[in-house]
């Protein structure tokens, strides 16, 4: 039954691939970052966004090449890195850069969903965490029902979000709102140092398009639709956000925008009055639902892939009758419920932790560019259905540019230092976990890359069965 599900014909098209990409890229916290960046330097924040978007497109291209060389791997970057740099780097990049970081970001998104609903529904006194938990339960159940339900929800949420933000942005940009436009300078700073210092913040607006890759075996004509889906997702998000920045300029006082913790609600209010508030609240709900849904689904598949290659306990690789990795879905969704129930996701420290998580995410991006170059050196003649054009130039630009983004993660030097410090602490903790897990459970050398054919073989459901039996046989022989 399980095998039948694994070989099910692809049923998702380019539209679903774009929906998945946009769904994860656009989040409520992104709208917050957009407001903060715009309020700080004005419309020149668009230049920071363009630089960040370009770097993310290069990352998407690198990810697409890796997917072309090692197609249909559920673990994505975990498996690419395992074949290029060995298990230590792979565990650090995946556990730190993806699983922990995204579980926290999604929990924060849920908290914002709860806060938004609580601010709109004032007649009844329901705690915001109750809304978060209700949302998580619904999304966990839908994800347990497999990719078909996931795709349906994803499309509705993502396209609702795209249309709403585009319309709101267009109305603001063209001064068609019912509110009173404000007169203020479009540019607050044209100094390149200022623009550069906001690139790290802008990078967060585009992070996450690679979550399209784990569903590549469900996508029709994946060779074309996966890279195209990722690039179009980024360009669509860029277009929407440019319109919103121009809309902010026309309707929201820059200082007021900078002070607001919910700039999108403020924008909706000043653009269209009460209708705008309700509309933006709905948009936030779309954004949160779409993001959290994508994160639960994609992280579950990544966790399943990691279990296949023994980076996580093998129970995470189990699928239910609908083909959903139910242990992964329940664990990741459950962790989010616990975080929201304890109220941790509403604390100010958590937003700081998100920025720290972004640094790990960016490190994962740098590693992906390295993987491209390593595999080109090791397998120069292997057929690639997609190859990043321009030889090593673009991956190198991607690596250098992303490191530069890490340097510009915050415009505040003190905050930047604290982020680096926390990153080092998390890195140390993950390093201890990685060393123990790799030595005791995986029984591998920390930095020895695995042969490509072995990593590909690990994708098969039977790999663990055969290799566990081999270990048992070996132990019995020793006895």
């Amino acid at each position, binding site marked *: 039954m399980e095998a039948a599900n694994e070989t099910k014909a692809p049923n998702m098209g380019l539209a679903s691939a774009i929906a998945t990409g946009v769904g994860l890229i656009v989040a409520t916290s992104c709208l917050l970052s957009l407001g903060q960046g715009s309020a700080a330097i004005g419309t020149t924040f668009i230049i920071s966004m363009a630089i960040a978007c370009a770097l993310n497109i290069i990352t998407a291209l690198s990810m697409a090449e890796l997917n072309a060389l090692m*197609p*249909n791997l559920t673990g994505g970057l975990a498996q690419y890195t395992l074949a290029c740099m060995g298990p230590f780097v792979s565990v650090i990049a995946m556990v730190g850069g993806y699983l922990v970081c995204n579980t926290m970001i999604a929990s924060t998104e849920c908290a914002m969903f709860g806060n938004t609903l609580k601010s709109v529904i004032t007649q009844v006194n329901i705690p915001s965490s109750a809304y978060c938990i209700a949302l998580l339960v619904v999304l966990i159940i839908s994800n347990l029902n497999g990719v078909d339900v996931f795709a349906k929800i994803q499309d509705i949420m993502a396209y609702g979000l795209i249309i709403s933000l585009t319309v709101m942005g267009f109305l603001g940009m063209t001064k068609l709102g019912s509110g009173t436009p404000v007169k203020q300078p479009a540019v607050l700073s044209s100094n390149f140092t200022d623009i550069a210092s906001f690139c790290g913040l802008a990078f967060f607006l585009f992070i996450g398009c690679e979550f399209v890759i784990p569903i590549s075996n469900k996508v029709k004509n994946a060779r074309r639709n996966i890279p195209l889906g990722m690039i179009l997702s980024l360009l669509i998000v860029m277009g929407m956000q440019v319109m919103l920045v121009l809309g902010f300029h026309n309707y929201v006082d820059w200082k007021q925008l900078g002070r607001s913790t919910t700039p999108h609600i403020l924008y909706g209010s000043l653009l269209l009055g009460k209708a705008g508030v309700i509309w933006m609240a709905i948009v936030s709900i779309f954004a949160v639902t779409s993001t959290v849904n994508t994160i639960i689904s994609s992280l579950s598949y990544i966790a399943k892939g990691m279990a296949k290659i023994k980076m996580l306990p093998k129970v995470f690789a189990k699928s239910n009758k609908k083909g959903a990795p139910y242990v992964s879905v329940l664990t990741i969704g459950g962790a989010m419920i616990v975080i929201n129930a304890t109220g941790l996701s509403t604390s100010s420290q958590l937003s700081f932790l998100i920025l720290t998580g972004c640094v790990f995410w960016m490190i994962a991006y740098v590693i992906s560019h390295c993987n491209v170059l390593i595999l080109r050196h090791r397998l120069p003649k292997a*057929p690639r*259905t997609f190859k990043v054009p321009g030889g090593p130039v673009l991956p190198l630009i991607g690596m250098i540019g992303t490191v530069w983004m890490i340097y510009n993660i915050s415009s505040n030097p003190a905050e930047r230092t604290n982020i680096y410090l926390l990153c080092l602490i998390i890195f140390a903790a993950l390093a201890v976990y990685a060393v123990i897990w790799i030595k005791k459970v995986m029984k591998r050398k920390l930095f020895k890359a695995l042969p490509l054919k072995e990593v*590909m*073989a690990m994708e098969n459901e039977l790999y663990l069965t*055969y290799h566990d039996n*081999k270990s048992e046989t070996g132990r019995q022989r020793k006895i």
Partner: protein
Amino acid sequence: MKLSRVEIITSTSKIEKLKNSIARFGISGMTVFQAMGCGVQLGTKEYEAEQNEEPSLLPKEMVMLIVPTERLNDFLEFVKKELYTGHIGDGKIFISEISNIVRVRTGEEGYDALISGKD
């Protein structure tokens, strides 16, 4: 015109897609053999922990076709991408030169024997 023989050995599950892809490339003639065989792994499945000590023959398909040598490199790139999954068992391609082809019915030789003629 120089001609080359291309023999592609691949798994049975890929043959239908490969057949259609070859036709899409513009080659209409091909001969497909059902075969049994193994490679350097002696028929060991990629997920198995121990390699077979004796050869285990697995069902395969072999596609034989003739390509103008000037189009050979393009064709090989095309077929490699079509067959590639990154897993053991994607297949092997053998290339050899051929000296002549004869269409028995008309007596045409060389490239003329490959293409659709007037008679």
